[in-house]
């Protein structure tokens, strides 16, 4: 594979990744990939459902149904016999409590036969990418060749949970045998037990190690990188405008299949578009919003953050040879990928660390990348990444390289808008980034594209996609 040759010729690369010299080694799977072009890992086909604001049109969905809808349609369109799938891998951050291994439920509901195994992966916001990289690693290891990968999240369905006092109350009630015991337990009842539930959504978006909710980690970056409110709002507005243009040009429709959600009123039409795009968004309206996480001087508002969203993306991951045998023209080849850890309180910088590794593994530079999908968790966080990518000093301090990683060219960054407009269904997003980036290869006539995102808990993930010769 090209990446190996390029690596050995690049002397700058040798000090990378903050690894002690003795433990320096090649990033995992690229090393074991067969050099045979037929064995390259490809995204053979993919599609996604529209992304809908949580509590909105997909509010009555459950993750298995939404994921299965995307997976079923993908299998139908690809014309792949579901029995020939080696495994279904679903990325999902918050599977419903009654579908702990939601990947298995998705597979069965999508019509994949029972003998095909399935599992669920979780790397927070990058779960959808984790599903694909797991598949890639398995292919490289010779453990299967055809994987159905799904990223799915129904944030509408995140529950309210009884607090500890209420849980204990129920447990004691169940243990009480006699009437006296029951009365005793009943007497211990206090209303706050039931009026102060734990909100799974809020708690899930809070990093337990740093104690910061995601928005606050973005505020840290705003302070450290000097990102202003005006910059953040302007970026958010641009995201909506680009998304609107991409919707109107039909660019987004190419990756979306319409979906009629359960609970829709008879006569309601299928949802065809991401419904977070605000056509009438203005800089004035954004400026009016109050900071959400740090009042009164914070920078992050709901207007310049991603929306909580429900959606699913499905990708068929296989080898170039198998795709050809199946009669499929792959969307892209997976040139390289990388995971990197970073400070949980500055998790928004994850893309910088991960991209550095992924580019090195691919043997290419930022300047070679035609299109970049960098997840817009927060406008502040994207802008901070932009500065870090272009900073020599950041590179020296954190990436072990003399020169900056390279500019995130505004014209190449999220050309179809990002999560601020389209929404961020956490488990699905990373798969969506891959899908959008893969489509962008042809749409923008690029040779390479990058999909990268920050991950709650202090990680970054990145993948370099390559256009396949037709």
């Amino acid at each position, binding site marked *: 594979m090209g990446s190996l040759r390029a690596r050995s010729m690049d002397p700058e690369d040798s000090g990378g990744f903050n690894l002690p010299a003795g433990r320096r080694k090649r990033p995992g799977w690229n090393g074991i990939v067969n050099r045979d072009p037929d064995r390259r890992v490809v995204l053979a086909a993919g599609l996604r459902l529209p992304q809908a604001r949580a509590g909105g049109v997909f509010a009555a969905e459950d993750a298995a149904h939404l994921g299965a809808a995307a997976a079923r*349609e993908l299998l*139908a369109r690809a014309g792949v016999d579901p029995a020939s799938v080696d495994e279904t891998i679903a990325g999902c951050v918050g599977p419903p409590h009654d579908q702990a291994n939601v990947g298995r439920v998705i597979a069965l509901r*999508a019509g994949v036969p029972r003998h095909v195994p399935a599992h669920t992966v979780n790397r927070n916001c990058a779960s959808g990418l984790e599903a694909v990289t797991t598949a890639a690693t398995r292919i490289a290891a010779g453990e299967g060749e055809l994987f159905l990968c799904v990223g799915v999240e129904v944030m509408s369905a995140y529950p309210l949970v009884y607090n500890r006092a209420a849980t204990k109350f129920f447990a004691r009630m169940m243990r009480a045998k006699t009437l006296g015991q029951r009365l005793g337990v009943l007497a211990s009842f206090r209303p706050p037990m039931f009026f102060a539930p734990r909100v799974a959504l809020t708690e899930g978006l809070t990093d337990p190690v740093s104690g910061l909710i995601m928005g606050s980690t973005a505020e840290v970056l705003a302070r450290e990188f000097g990102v202003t409110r005006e910059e953040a709002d302007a970026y958010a507005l641009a995201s909506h405008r680009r998304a609107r243009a991409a919707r109107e040009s039909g660019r987004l429709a190419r990756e979306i299949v319409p979906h*009629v959600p359960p609970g829709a009123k008879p006569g309601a039409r*299928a949802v065809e578009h991401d419904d977070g795009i605000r056509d009438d968004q203005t800089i004035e309206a954004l400026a009016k919003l109050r900071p959400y996480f740090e009042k009164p001087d914070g920078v992050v508002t709901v207007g310049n953050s991603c929306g909580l969203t429900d959606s699913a993306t499905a990708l068929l991951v296989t080898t170039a040879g198998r795709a050809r045998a199946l009669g499929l023209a792959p969307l892209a080849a997976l040139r390289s990928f990388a995971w990197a850890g970073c400070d949980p309180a500055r998790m928004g910088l994850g893309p910088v660390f991960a991209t550095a590794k992924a580019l090195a593994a691919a043997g290419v530079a930022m300047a070679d990348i035609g299109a970049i999908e960098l997840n817009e968790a927060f406008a502040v966080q994207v802008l901070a990444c932009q500065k870090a990518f272009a900073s020599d000093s950041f590179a020296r301090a954190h990436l072990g390289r003399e020169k900056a990683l390279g500019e995130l060219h505004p014209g190449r960054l999220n050309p179809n808008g990002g999560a601020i407009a389209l929404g961020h269904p956490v488990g699905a997003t990373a798969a969506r980034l891959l899908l959008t980036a893969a489509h962008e290869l042809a749409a923008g006539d690029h040779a390479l594209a990058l999909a990268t995102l920050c991950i709650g808990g202090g990680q970054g993930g990145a993948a370099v996609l390559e256009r396949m010769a037709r």
Partner: protein
Amino acid sequence: MIDLAGIPLPADAPPPGTCWRIERPAPELVRLHLDPPHRPKLAVFDVPVLRDLDLALAALAADPALRGLVIAGREPLSFAGGADIETIARFAEKEHAEKFVREGQALFERLHRLGREGGGRLCTVAAVGGAVPGGACEIALACDRLVLADDPKTRIGLPEVLLGIFPAWGGSQRLPRRIGVPAALDSILAGKLHPAKRALRLGLADRLAKPAYLWRVAEEIARGGIACPRRERRGWRLWLVDRNPLAGAAIAHLARRGVMKETKGQYPAPLAVLPLVVRAPRMRLATGLAAELAAVGPLAASDVSKSLVNLFLLSEAAKKLGVGPDGEKAPRIARAAVIGAGVMGGGIASLLAEKGVEARLHDLEPAALDAAVHAHRREIERKRKRRRIERPEADAALDRLEVTRAPVGFARCELVLEAVAERLEVKRAVLGRLATLARPDAILATNTSSLAVDAIAASLPRPERVVGMHFFNPVRRMPLVEIVRGTATDPGVIARVARLAVDLGKTPVVVKDVPGFLVNRLLGPYLDEALRLVEMGADPAAIDRALVDFGMPMGPCELVDEVGLDIAAHAGASLAAAYGGRMAATGFLGPLLAAGHLGKKSGAGIYLWKPGPAGRPANGGVNPALPSRRGPFTLTMVEVLDRLVLAMGNEAARCLEDAVVAGPRELDLATVFGTGFAPFRGGLLRHADAVGLAEIVERLERLHAAPDVAGSERAERFAPAASLVERARAGRSFHG
């Protein structure tokens, strides 16, 4: 000993003593397995089985060591299909049928007396599962305890009224005693079969056990090892409801009213069994059994029962169409494409998805697809709400319907069914395109009602895989599917689509590729004749009433409104074009049609349709916009009936001449399931036989000469068909 002497045995009857297998797991316990060697698939209670049960019971009664008796089937989930319907249908002598019923009842009563509940010394336990209908349920009711296999396949009940008789081997007496009068009436009058859990809740079963444990549990109960108290839930209700004459009278009154509403009094069986059930808890069992026997005799001999039994046998035979020549079922279709998401296409796709077939529905119009999805959801959620299906099943049914506006994703489809506009070039183009997208061996089916299958097949590669699959509207309610065999159609293809129809819960009938196929060809003259009567000044409501009284589910005028005036006119025109004069269609409704009055769907047709309760349109009287009619109308209702029914009957004779269906039996089945022709009359040709063919010919000739018919364009429809005249002259009937 019971006396079965004189009753003819079936030709394949095994030697005495072989139909019940006696197992003795312990000295004090016997398991009696129903295992007749001449019925290797499904056991039924026929003469040899009763004979051998008699022998077995006699031996067991004489065994002093015996304490417990378990009655079981060949397998835990296979017991018996009830009394042998074919035996009953074949008895030539009336006394034989009566004797069969009488001796069966006496035999079960002997079993009852062996048990403790009947004063005997054995503990008798029925351990049954799978389908336990009719006589199979009645023998179980005669045991002390009923243990039922806890399995989705289990269905138990007394469906005899559906065959024009009622449970007379003690069922009408023992069921109300066991589960109370209201529940028993509900069960018996509707002929309901209950799943295991409901049977337990009703008290029909005393205990459930997984099939693997069924026999062991029953043995333990028979030995007294496991306590199994009778599920007596009646308590105070026994005195307040079941044994209270006042309550009984009220229940009987209400039930009777319900039955009359449902059957219009055309079916005597529910009315005959009703008082027996209501009085059962207040009578001594022996008296009740005698009353039961006395009441069932005339029913069993009645034409209604014979017709219904015959229909049942015909529909069972129709299911065999899905069986290949090797005796195996044709391969199942697991994935199908439906093209056209209109009411028909959407309905078919929804039904496929519900019945386990992945259905990919394609239409260029997104609104139609969305509407189809909504309709599917509504249907499945309705079933879910009524507890007809469980949540996971409902979810899977919802998942199996795929919709697509892009013509992609058909690669794995084994069947492509088109339900697009009734235009030859459109259908050809659609199937031609799909033939390249679906599997190369995919069956190409058309739901056409007015085009020739051969014409559609002509332009397609490999026409041997093209077949007509004509569903009727509304898809879910209409039980018939016409499977149209083109000249090139492969027999294997016919078997596969027939199997699919059976899987969908439909009754298939194979018809020849003639215009209108069978059902529409028969309905053509029938509906046209009705419209002409209206044109002559008859009141549409009066015509409809006459036909409903005759036994049709709805009158012809309402049917035209239901189908849609536009569709009816189109069908009429294409029949007229194909068959000429005798199918000539009146243009009487032209003005209504032009004014946009299309029937129920537009709110007005021959009648006015107002939105009624539950979203169903209600009849709001005759549409004042109906074109002015010639009057006064002088025909009697008998003449009205004759015109409609004989026009249809005469065409049926012609269909037989043209070999449109395999024979008169299939034609009868199609008329009942396709046109709703009075089931108690057993079908159109059976009705003609009952009237007498000579009489039919005479009446047809009279109609042919009627002043308004003679010389008219349509007169030929009343000219007796050649085969009819010939049969009448030879004194033969259709079924003779």
